[in-house]
Structure formats: structure tokens, C-alpha cells
């Protein structure tokens, strides 16, 4: 998770979104072809799943003791259509139980909310750090190495410890809630890519532009507003998207490790525990988590459409 990662991941999205600017007919048909091939890719994964399930041995493929391909029993690999059917069925046999998909959707919404809170904190802190480091190079020298190093260490391991912190915090009428611990961990993961991306972006204006603003006797704040922030957009967007993805991952993991009820992380564990009797049910929250990640990253991509004028250089490149 170093500075470069922003760009690498950003690259995918840029490549996917690029045709949006083009209006010519050949471009549109190419877009359509790309879209259809994309669907074909997803379908081929499904075919692979069902194909292996049909032809593969029940006990999987073992080399010595190590199982290198999974078991193909319905318990280990349920049929895709069974998973879909299960989503529509009630979550438990109790009367009035919601269908599985609704339970998953509610849990995903809760997690999305927590992740969004964490992301927002991560954006504020990350952009704040970037501004600090852009303004004073000494701050960049002092902080940046630590930020890069901290990206290489599994700080998410702190998750169980953070919960113990939270349970002791009580300031006046304000009482630390468990979900805040989860949001804190989510913000922690979101903050790193945003800091690095924002710093790169704020430092990205060409010398000629910086000097132009200097000849205009433009102050720090107006240069920030008219030059540095607009120029940072192409760097900020992938960073924000990565931050959103990280916030979701952090929220899911933190829910599991802090034992927070109601979110998708909890459902993952809970339904996996029931998998021996109800194997399809365990896949419900997985689909939920996948859609959650896509929604989070997609929302940031929407931001990119709003800010498309600031991405002209990116599209031209």
C-alpha cells in the first residue's frame, strides 16, 4: 500500500471510465463491446464454478495432505442458483422473518454508514496532513516516511485493542459507542491513501502555474482554491476511491474483531456458523459485502463525473 498504489488502482477505473467522454459512434460501439465482454467475463467465472462443481471430485483435489482444489459437495460449493433462491427465502423459519436479501441489505447499509463516517474522518485528516506537508516541507520530511512505513504494516491488527480503548472513553454526556470504534478503524485505513494522494495532487501543479500565481500576487488560500485543489483532483479521486474501499474493508474487519452486532461483518461470521445446515445462507452476506464495496467505490466515481472538467489532463494522457 504505497504511494504508487493509488495510481495503479486508479488506472483501472480510468480505463473503464474513459469512453464516457467520447461521443463518436465507433467509440460508443467499442464501449458496448467492452461492456458485453465484461459480462462475458463474469459469466465465465460462474461457468467455471458450476463446471468444476460438476466434474471435480467430491473431496476436492489433494496433493499429499494439501487440498489445492475445493470439495465439490453442495455443502462446500452450493449451486449458484441455490444461492440466489436462498436470498429470496426468509432468513429463519420464525414467523414474519425477513427474506435473507433484506437482512443482508440492512446490515450492509449499517456497515456502509459506519464506513462512510470513517471515510469522512479519513478525508478530513488525510487532506489536513497533506496540506500541512505541502505547506511546510519540514513537515513532509518528518511525517511522510512514517506514513509510508505505516502503510506497510498491518495496523488493522489494532482492531481488537481499539475496542478496549473506546469502552473507557466517557466525556460528560458523550459516551463512546461501539460503532465509533469500528468507524475509527475504518478511518485509519482510509486515511493513508488519501494523505498520499492529496499530497501528490497538491504538489502536482507545474512550476509555470505556481509562478503565474506568484506574479498575480495570489495569496496562499486563493492559490490553494484556484490552483492546487483543482490540480489535485486527478490524484484525489483515485485516492478517495481507494480510501472508500479501505474504509469498507476496515469496517467489515473491525465489526468482526470488535464483535459489533448488526453489520455485515457480524452476519458473515454468524451465517458461516450455520453453514453446515444451510450452506447457501453463508453466501448472502458475501454478495452483500461485494455490492457494498462496489457501491462505496461507485459513489466516489460519481464524484469523478461531477468533477470531470478537472480531469481533462488525465483523459488526454
Amino acid at each position, binding site marked *: *500500500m*504505497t504511494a*504508487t498504489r493509488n495510481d*495503479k488502482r486508479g*488506472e*483501472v477505473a480510468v480505463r*473503464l471510465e474513459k469512453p464516457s467522454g467520447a461521443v463518436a459512434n465507433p467509440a460508443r460501439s467499442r464501449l458496448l*463491446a467492452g461492456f458485453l*465482454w*465484461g*459480462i462475458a*467475463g463474469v459469466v465465465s467465472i460462474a461457468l467455471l464454478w458450476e463446471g468444476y462443481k460438476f466434474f471435480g471430485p467430491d473431496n*476436492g483435489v489433494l496433493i499429499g495432505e*494439501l*487440498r*489445492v482444489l*475445493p*470439495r465439490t459437495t453442495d*455443502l462446500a460449493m452450493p449451486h449458484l442458483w441455490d444461492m440466489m433462491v436462498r436470498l429470496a427465502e426468509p432468513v429463519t423459519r420464525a414467523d414474519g422473518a425477513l427474506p435473507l436479501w433484506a437482512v443482508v441489505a440492512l446490515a450492509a447499509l449499517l456497515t456502509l454508514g459506519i464506513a462512510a463516517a470513517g471515510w469522512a474522518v479519513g478525508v478530513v485528516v488525510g487532506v489536513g496532513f497533506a496540506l500541512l506537508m505541502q*505547506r511546510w516541507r*519540514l513537515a513532509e*520530511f518528518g*511525517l511522510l516516511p*512514517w506514513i509510508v*512505513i505505516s502503510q*506497510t*504494516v*498491518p495496523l*488493522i*491488527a489494532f482492531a*481488537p*485493542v481499539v*475496542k*478496549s480503548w473506546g469502552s*473507557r472513553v466517557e466525556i460528560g454526556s458523550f459516551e463512546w459507542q461501539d460503532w465509533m470504534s469500528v468507524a475509527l478503524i475504518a478511518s485509519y485505513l482510509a486515511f493513508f491513501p488519501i494523505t498520499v494522494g492529496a499530497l501528490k495532487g497538491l504538489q502536482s501543479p507545474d512550476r509555470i502555474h505556481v509562478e503565474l500565481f*506568484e506574479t*498575480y*500576487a*495570489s*495569496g496562499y488560500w*486563493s492559490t490553494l482554491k*484556484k490552483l492546487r485543489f483543482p490540480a489535485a483532483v486527478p490524484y484525489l479521486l483515485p485516492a478517495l476511491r481507494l480510501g472508500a*474501499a479501505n474504509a*469498507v*474493508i476496515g469496517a*467489515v*474487519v473491525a465489526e*468482526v474483531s470488535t464483535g459489533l452486532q448488526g453489520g455485515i461483518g457480524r452476519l*458473515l*461470521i454468524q*451465517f*458461516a456458523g450455520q453453514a*453446515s445446515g444451510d450452506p447457501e445462507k453463508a*453466501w448472502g452476506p*458475501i454478495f452483500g459485502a*461485494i455490492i*457494498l464495496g*462496489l457501491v*462505496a*467505490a461507485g459513489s466516489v466515481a460519481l464524484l469523478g463525473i461531477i468533477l470531470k472538467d478537472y480531469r481533462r489532463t488525465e483523459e488526454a494522457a
Partner: protein
Amino acid sequence: MTATSANAIVNGRSGTGARRSKGWSPRTESTLRIVAPISFGLLVLGIWQLLVTVGGVDDYLLPSPTSIVAELVEFWPAVVSATVLTGTNSLLGLLVGSLVGIVLAAIAARWRIADQMSAPIVAALAVVPIVALAPVLNSMFGADSQFGRQAIAAIASFVPIFINTLRGFRQTKPVHRDLMKAYAANSGQMLRSLTLPTARPFILTGIRIASSLAVISALVAEYFGGPRGGLGSLIATSAASSAYSRAWAYVGASIALGLLFYLATLALERLVLRRVPTGGSR
């Protein structure tokens, strides 16, 4: 785009100040680059000590460095075996992820259809919480197997390696391709003498990025059940039984493991690229 305030001119001085304060000589700058982070690190460590010893911060909030070290010494064998277990999972995952990532990227670079088919899957893999697969992987491969964690580490490291490698394969310049064509080079020669050398730095960057991801993923996957004994599960159990210093000791070990992976891949990158200094920019 409203008009800015008239105090732009008043503020002009600050812009000037920022420019002129940058006039450090190259030597001062390189010194500061080393001194600044070290002093910042010492500052944080000092504040930590101060908080714990003088400020009276409770042990469960922030154990003092000494008590963490004490736990580290007491549980040394467990720390080592846990680090080895998680480290092995991460390493296997990284190796498999690298291999698959590079091969698939080569295929995607060669055939446009493969690229188009993989694009949405890779884009999705990059943003979804892969660890969510941990519980079902455990039931697919057996609850006593480490395979689920290795698979998650592999998928997590696959993403940046695939993306970087694909990008690297696309870096060959038209002038070089024309040159190879003029030499009537066959596709094997083209790969050996042009495509691979151009892509090499990108592949290595991908592996370096993936190294930390592999460790994080293997460790976090342990929170989702399966056999105990790795760093992740030990952190969780220690924290659950209020043994915070011990939890911190395992956290320390996982930081060391993450750094080890990062530095090893960084060294690999430097080593290989030193022989081909301009691999990326030609």
C-alpha cells in the same frame, strides 16, 4: 467561480515567504530528510513514555513499551511460531498471487478479449473486502486448513500485481516496436528483448505493493475463524482476555512481519533494477 476577496493582494506576502524559505542548500536538505523523521519518531516515543509513566495512562489503554517487551520475552516461542505461521501463509499467497497475476496480465496484454473480460472482475476485486470470503473458503477447503488464508492473501496480492504488470506490458514505445519489426524479430524475441525488460520495473513495483497486502490479508483472515495459532488469532484472543500488553506484543510482531515483507520486496526491486537502471523510462 465567484470573485475572490480583495485581500489576495494583502496575502501575497505569504506566498513570497513560502518560496523564499525553500532556499535550502542541497546538503541541508538531505540532512533534514534524515534528521526530521528520526526526531519526529523520538518525539512520539517520548510522548508515549511520558503519558504512561507520568500521565498515569492505564495499562489497558496504552501499555508502556517496557511491559510490551516483557510480554514479548515471556511469550517468545509462541510469538515466533505465530509469526512463522502467518508469514508462511502470506508468502505462499504472495507467490501464487504473483504468478497468477503476471500470467493473466500477459494473457490480457496479448488478447484484447481477455483484457475486456477481466476488467470488471479486477476492478471489483480491487474494491470489495476480500476477507469476506474467509468463512466460505474455510468450509470449502476444510476448517483445519490454512488454505483459506493463503487463498485470500493470494487474491489480495493478485490485484496490484495484475494491474501493474498489465500496465508494464503496455509501456513499450512504438519506436521500439517498429525497430523490432524492422529487425524482423519473432514474437519470442520481441518478448525477451523488449516487452519483458520494459515491464520488469512495473512487475516488481506490483510485487512490492502486494507484499504488505498479503501480510495484512493473511492476518486479518484469521479473525474470521479457522485454526488458531497465527498472529491474528492470538491478537484477538489476548485482547479478549484483557491481556493488552500481550496483544501489543503480537501487534509488534505483525508490524515486524509486514516490514520484513516490504523491505524484502523493496530490496528485490532495487537489486534487479540496478542492473537495468533505466528500465522504466526508456
